[in-house]
């Protein structure tokens, strides 16, 4: 029943055996063992499952794997390059922008997506683009601080 599909995740190509309508989230976590992407609701309401598809942040629990065939997918595991953290990861670390950290992966991916589109977002723009991401521990102020800090670091690096 499952037809073979190929998806590209973090620069690697994978043949997927799960049915085409399986949420990308399940394929990432259960088939590819990329468990950095989290399940928080499965309903598109919490953002814990956020990944980049073709550079845009998407809720992987709402995307059937078949819809991810054409574009490259980036998960949190793909942010670190040659043992060097992505500036957004570094900024979260520097700001201590987590408590239980279960929301962190989704927050990071949404923030990376935002900064790719808008290198110097205003506070309100950060709030706007993270509005769909829930942090139950209440770390919001530090997350905003981290995104601002990351924007600065990325600009200094001239990216």
């Amino acid at each position, binding site marked *: 029943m499952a037809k073979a599909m190929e998806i590209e995740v973090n620069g690697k190509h994978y043949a997927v055996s799960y049915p085409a309508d399986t949420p990308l989230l399940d394929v990432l976590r259960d088939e590819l063992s990329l*468990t950095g992407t*989290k399940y928080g609701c499965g309903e598109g309401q919490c953002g814990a499952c956020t990944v980049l598809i073709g550079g845009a942040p998407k809720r992987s629990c709402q995307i059937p794997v078949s819809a991810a065939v054409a574009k490259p997918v980036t998960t949190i595991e793909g942010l670190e390059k040659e043992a060097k953290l992505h500036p957004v990861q570094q900024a979260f670390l520097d700001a201590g922008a987590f408590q*239980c950290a279960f929301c962190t992966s989704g927050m990071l991916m949404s923030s990376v997506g935002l900064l790719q589109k808008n290198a110097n977002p205003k506070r309100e723009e950060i709030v706007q683009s993270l509005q769909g991401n829930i942090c139950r521990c209440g770390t919001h102020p530090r997350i905003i601080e981290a995104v601002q800090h990351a924007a600065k670091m990325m600009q200094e690096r001239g990216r």
Partner: protein
Amino acid sequence: MSTMKERFAPEPERYEFSAAPMHQFELARRDFFKVLGAGIAVFVVAKEALPAQETAAGSRSFHNEELPKEITSWLHVGEDGVVTGFTGKAEMGQNIRTSISQTIADELRVPFESVRLVLADTTLTPFDAGTFGSRTTPTMTPQFRRVAEAARNLLIGVAAKEWNVAPEGLVAADAKVTDPTSKRSLSYAELARGKTLAQNLPAEDPITPASEWKIAGKPLPKVDGRAFVTGRHQYTSDIRLDGMLYGKVLRPPSFGATLTSYDDTAAKAMTGVTVVRDGDFIAVAAPSAHEAQKALDAIHTQWKEVPQVPSKEIFSHLKKNAEPSSNERFRRQKGSLEEGLAAAAHRIDATYNVAYIAHAPLEPRAAVAQWTDGKLAVWTGTQRPFANRDELASVFHIPESNVRVIVPDTGAAYGGKHTSDAAIEAARLARATGKPVKVVWTREEEFTWAYFRPAGVIEVSSGVTGDGKLTAWEFHNYHSGMSGIETPYDVANQLTQYHQVPLVLRSGSYRGLAATANHFARETHMDALARVAKMDSLEFRLKNLSDVRMRAVLEAAAKSCGWPRKKTQEGQGFGLACGAEKGSYVATCAEVAVDRASGSVRVVRVVEAFECGAIVNPDGLRNQVVGAIIQGLGGALFEAVEFENGHIKNPHFSAYRVPRFRDVPEIEAVLLDRKDLPSAGAGETPIMTIAPAVGNALFDATGIRLNNLPLVPNGLRAA
């Protein structure tokens, strides 16, 4: 719901102290060092009277060697110089892995990085009743100071023997012992090499005062932070064992529903699927989550449902169903209410209602279970690993020593993960299939089948003199609980009583327990009294308050928020509230903006002053305080579980609103560091006063007194 009542007893909200029995014992030393390798070990034996909940009866095992239950923590210095601390507490975002490591490093005189902690593993760590009640810091900080100090002295002793000098002159620093006279030194690793030295230690020696802390007291970043920002940390739901199956449980359509017809033929015919029906437990296991879901959908059932109280009628239900002969231990009285009320110039009576709310931790309940030769190992995110172990042992009729519960650092709990629901489900499926099984609850299951913070009704009658002195205070809490029920204000005539009501929904602990409800009622009422006495609400509180620590937080919050604040815009309002619980003190000042036309309510700014004795890690503490304020805003403004006839009507984040970025105000946390006082816990108290502060600010803005939580689930329209 009868099955639920039998199975689940809500956590007692009383913190009673009783002395633990005192025993001498021989450690299973050989066994200990076999597991950890040679080195130096120190065990803490709690002789002191500890809270009953911390030393509840139960056997502990260390590789099946029974260890005396008085042992509460231990420390090991290995031959490689690695320092390992062991405690049964769990990490769920409150940052204890970092703060306890700091304490150990500080006292043992080693770099922070050389300390690791083994937490919440029923085989490797000492017994612990659970991570709740803000008990980790007040119990573990002094204990680890003592073990670390003892280990340091053992190391000095080894060096003294080696050099044949008196230990008194030797100095321990930077993970080595040095003899200042001869300038010789030996590292801890060298000193531990080939040794199997152990010491038992009474948990009562003096400790280094906070003013001399070097590593503790500093804002060190979270241990393993990198594992979290790279997604490498494995939460329970991320664990995958070889051959592991995925489990799903079939839930009744409503609480208390009974099965009337059942057909699992189609599900059983599916490849790789196992269906388990055992009493009222119906579940499936399959090689993948989607196959498990398909199999579950293929089971055909019919149920008989029973009518039940709806959330719309919950408050009158609670009031009507209070148990008549309320226990005397729930009642405190002094003076004469009659006289107090007679002396009053103003009297206010009011009723406050508090809705059921859900914890909704972002990581839902999850467990991975594996059976090997009749022994069960379970990974699960719980606050009570040892209680879970005992429950599993009893459910499966095996000895406790055959069960191991391991708690990976967890995606939060807030009091909501005491029970072993997912663990039992995974273990039952794993037993049926002979393979490891993972069960991860869906968000809807978490919102429906977990337990809730109980609803409550609180009635207050009070009297105050013309110049603002409290004369009478009568306070009745129905159902929600006793935490924080006693007023901190000076009132000669008072009666406080808690009334039990049989459970309506499955209920249990929630960050702060009933202290949030009780503080909401009390502090809202105090605000109303200040108004009738025509006094500023800060001045009114201070006039009736002699507790100096409470006065200090109140004054600190007032100062930072610039109290008394003049309103400069339409719809603006300011409110104040304070409280104390579990050895820490909090005061909150909130500013709100109400748009009377649209009814929209915005919390603009919150200043919260918090004092919990000597601060172990100001960075982690700030995270906890700010987090509590934001989480508390949800219950204050809009969170409420809606139900009818045993159905939860809003079991989704789309219908159960939690605070999001746009709801977050500007927040200032003022931390008062009392180096002269023992460190108290901080996980709960900072959540207690945000609701009344906001409610009082809304009154200031609109003249509308809101006595129910949540305050404004649908905004605030013109009166």
